Each structure stands twice: as structure tokens, then as C-alpha cells.
């Protein structure tokens, strides 16, 4: 089965900058990239794991804290890096993004590729609306995610063509 490109905006639009992920998805929906699955989520691991299949290329759009921080700065992280950056597991209620990836790996459910596009947030208070720093960074973040979608499609097509040449199935059935 051919993989899909799945884009997941993680965050809560009622917590200011935490809404940047869903805001990127909303912007992409205005002119949806061909053949990409656009979705948003709250990062809950059971649901996250249900959003992709093993042969998919997954792009997660997320907000991060950095120390020292520069709100609005953009980061591109591999799944491994995101997992390392995530806070340790001491949650009483939920799991973080890093643990979600680790859980997927433990259950052999990691997608073919997974990249996190993140922006450093400033304001996580209650309410709508992004801080100026994050709002200013959003167009560039959207451009990067759109570019990442195109590149992921290219790689998927390439892998699929290779598999066809070999007369076998794609490597992650």
C-alpha cells in the first residue's frame, strides 16, 4: 500500500500560542495541498497513533518551549530529537509528544518518516489569539510545512517507484 502524507497540527487554540499547530492546518486548508491528510489534535497518544499508518510520512506541527527561548524561532526536529527534548514522564494525566513517539516505537507503529515543525511560543495563557512573535513567524512556518509536504510526496513516489522496479511491495507494508 502506498503511503500518505499526514500533517497533524497539535495544540489548543484556547491557549494562545498553543494554537499555532491548528492555525497552520487551518491556513493549509484554505488551499489544501494535493493528497495530503490535514488534521489537528490535542496530542493525546492513543489518537495520535490512530492518525497514521506505518507506510505514511508524518509531519507534526507543534509549539515548543526553549531554554533560553526566543519566541517565534522555528525548529525542525526528527522524531528522535523531539523525544529527547520532551519532558520526562511524570504525568498524572496525559503523555507528551515524545512519549507518544516512544510508545509508537514500542508498539512497532512508527510511520515511515516523522518530522516535527515547531515554533517557540511565548504566551500560553487562557484565550484566543497568538502572540505577536508567533503570529509573525506563522507565514514562514506555513511555507516550511507546505515545502515539507511536497518533499515527502517526492520521497514517497521515489520509494514506490523503487519498489515497483524491484517488483516487490513497499518496504513498510
Amino acid at each position: 500500500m502506498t503511503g500518505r502524507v499526514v500533517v497533524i497540527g497539535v495544540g489548543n487554540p484556547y491557549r494562545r500560542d498553543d494554537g499555532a499547530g491548528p492555525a497552520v492546518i487551518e491556513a493549509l486548508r484554505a488551499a489544501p495541498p494535493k493528497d495530503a491528510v490535514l488534521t489537528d489534535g490535542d496530542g493525546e497518544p492513543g489518537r495520535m497513533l490512530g492518525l497514521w499508518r506505518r507506510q505514511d510520512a508524518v509531519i507534526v506541527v507543534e509549539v515548543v518551549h526553549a531554554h533560553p527561548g526566543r519566541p517565534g524561532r522555528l525548529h525542525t526536529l526528527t522524531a528522535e530529537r523531539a523525544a529527547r527534548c520532551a519532558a520526562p514522564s511524570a504525568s498524572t494525566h496525559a503523555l507528551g509528544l515524545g512519549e507518544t513517539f516512544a510508545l509508537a516505537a514500542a508498539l512497532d507503529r512508527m510511520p515511515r518518516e516523522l518530522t516535527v515543525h515547531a515554533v517557540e511560543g511565548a504566551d500560553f495563557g487562557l484565550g484566543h489569539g497568538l502572540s505577536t512573535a508567533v503570529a509573525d513567524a506563522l507565514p514562514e512556518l506555513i511555507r516550511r510545512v507546505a515545502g515539507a509536504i511536497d518533499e515527502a510526496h517526492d520521497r514517497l513516489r521515489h520509494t514506490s517507484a523503487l519498489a515497483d522496479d524491484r517488483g516487490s511491495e513497499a518496504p513498510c507494508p
Partner: protein
Amino acid sequence: MSHRGSRVLRLDALARVEGEAALQLAVRDGTVAEARLRVYEPPRFFEAFLVGRGHGEPPDITSRICGICPVAYQMTACQAIERACGVTVDGPLARLRRLLYYGEWIESQSLHIHLLHAPDFLGCPSAVELAREHRAAVERGLRIKQAGNAIMEQLGGRAIHPVNVRVGGFYRVPAPAELAPLAERLRRAHDDALATVQWVASFDFPDATYDGPFLAMRDPGRYAIDSGTPAVMAAGAGSDAAAPVRALPVEEFERHVVERQVPHSTALVSELDGHHYLTGSLARYAVSGRWLHPSALDAAREAGLGDPATGRVCRNPFRSIIVRAVEVAHAVAEALRIIDAYEPPARPYLAVPPRPATGRAATEAPRGLLYHRYAMDADGTLTLARIVPPTAQNQAAIEYDLRRQVQSRLDGPGEPPGDEELTSLCERAVRNHDPCISCSAHFLDLTVERG
């Protein structure tokens, strides 16, 4: 390290979204002086946010309060608004609503059982290690959860923050054929849910008792979720026998459940007639256990929970994981029953014209009783919104439970506990109650301070 002297344990909030909950425990001369759970509570923001909005908006707005239990907020908001407007939604529309609610229950309880609570009993530091060591059980849990997810997607229009619910009913109701695939998944999920009850029943449970009053919805003949009247089971004197139950009509809720501010938390702390009390799985099982679906009731008996039909209750917060598993089995079985008998309603919703009035409602969110009150003027503009979520209600009971459990450990035989052991004990005690302390944040970090 001696347990004499003074020390403070602090579980600090951290993370992607700043602090949502923290716990501070103070021990002085071998006595627990204080256990303070600090909760940052989003519903208060929503109360102010709702004033001035139209009477059709609360289901959509309040569903954003929590990513785990949006349907609970929607259902309670709808019922409160409809009561204010003198409209009763019953028949197939009410059953469809309940089906959606079961979807959320299945999801939320399965998440807590498998990814958050079970690691405590199996010596795993997190769900990741649990998945490595007990992969089949975690896979089974995710299968059950995804069946709940499928209900949410089908009826709610999407898996999180469902958009298909409106005051009076739904924007669109499904054709019977659309529910058929759900039934297939749920039949498999029912077997999985019963296996989960057996699995969690095999865990080792520390001795512990919550001896305060229970508060849960009660609707004789039904394991009440979205119907009936709040009811209070009196405090139990350390026994697992049922205590007397009295009704607490929703109109009188705020006369008995009084919230007060405490300096250490932005959440208001609720008391029931001046006493801490518990709402959630243990309370529901005590008040309504005898009306579980027969398959879930059998599973509960076999799991050693005690037969609710003969007046047994479970007061051990650690064993709440069994009750949650039984509730999942019940929700799956009842969801199937609704789908099997489904006939589409004549209309997807009833008209709910506004009038100047106040409406109140309570339903059972997965983690406990949720209360809403709205007042509106003649054109439906909301003039007041009041939301009492389950975790705020349980806060005082959780603190009480923490004090007792830590004290019990300090008084017990063996080496005095170190900070690490006490921290772990506190975390477990908090998790037993599945508090929704982070309606949007995902991490809790831990630091230990010695006084």
C-alpha cells in the same frame, strides 16, 4: 534518611503549557501537616467567556474546555439550556446522544486504564515500558479506545471537539447503515473489554479506603450517565457495605455543593454540606452498580469488586481501575444495544426557542459529576454561566486521601520512606482519581525539596 524533622515534597507543574497542577506535601515530625493539590482550572475562563453569547453556543464553546471529555461538556450544556427553555429531548435523539457519550466514556476510561494507571501496578515507570513488556494488553486497550473513537467520529463529526452536537439534538443524524460498521467494532471491543477487566483484576492492590460521602447521578434501573438526579451516598464507616442514599435535586445542587477559594489553587474547592466528597467511578459503582449491563455486572463480580446487587461498594481508590474497566464493558454493551435498536429520529433536532430563564443540569463525565447552570434573557443571550467540573469537586477528597495514605506509610513498619518513595506514593494516589488537572497541558515535572 530519617522521617523525623520537616520536609516538603513538591510535584511542580511544568511544560509545553505552563503549570496546570502541582502538589505540595509537608511532613513535620512524622506527621503529614499538609497536602495541597494546586489546580489551574480552565472552566473559570469559560464561564466569563460564555456571558453575552447566544444560547445555542455553549455546546460548541464548552466542548473546548477538555480534549478528553468534550462530550460531557456538550451533553451537560445542552440539557441545562433545554431545561431553561422548557424542551425535553427524549426518544431516539436522547439515545443517540447517549451513544455519543458512551463513545467518549470508552475512549477516556480506556486511555486512563492502559496508558496512565496500569503502569503503576506493573512496576513500569510509564506507558512506554508497559507497551514493551505487556504489548498485547496495551494493543487491546488501544483497540477498545479506537472503537470509542469511531463512535465519536461517526456521531460527533470528528474525534476531538465534536462539531455535530447542537442544542435540541444533532445537525445530522446517521442512517442505520452508517452505524453497522460501529457495531462490528464494538462486538470485538466487548470481548476486549471483558478481557481487560480480568487483566486489571489480577493486579495487586494496596489497602486503602476512602470513607467520605459519594456523589453520583442516580436513575433507578439504569447505570446513570446522562439521566436521573444527583444522589449522595453517606460516608461509610470503613466498611464495603452500601450506606444510605439520598437525592440531591439538581435545582438544589449549589445549596449543598459549596465552592470556596483557597490560596494555593485557582480552582475552587467544593464541599458537600461542609465535607469533602468523591465523585467518579467509585461513586457511580456504589450508587448505580446494580444497574450495570448484565455482562459488566458479571465481570465485576468475577473481578472481586463485590456484588452491588447485594449492597457491596468499593471504597479502595486503587481498585478504581477495575471499576473503570467494568464501566468500559458496560458502555460497549449499552452502545451496541442502542445501535441494534436504532431507528433514525424523525428530525435531527428539536427547536429550542429562548426565553428568560435559568436551567441546570448534571451528567456523569468519565471522571465524575459535571454540573452546568445557565441564565439567559428573552432573546437567548446568556447572562450567567456556571460550571462545576468533577476534578474541582474531588480536589478536597484527593488531598484527604493523600494525607491518609502518606500518614499510613509513615506509621507503617519497615524503613521510613525516602522522598522518592513518597513522591511515587503521592503520584499513584493522585492517579487513582484520574483528575483532569490538565485540560490542555501534557507534562507534570517533579522536584523534591527538603525543609
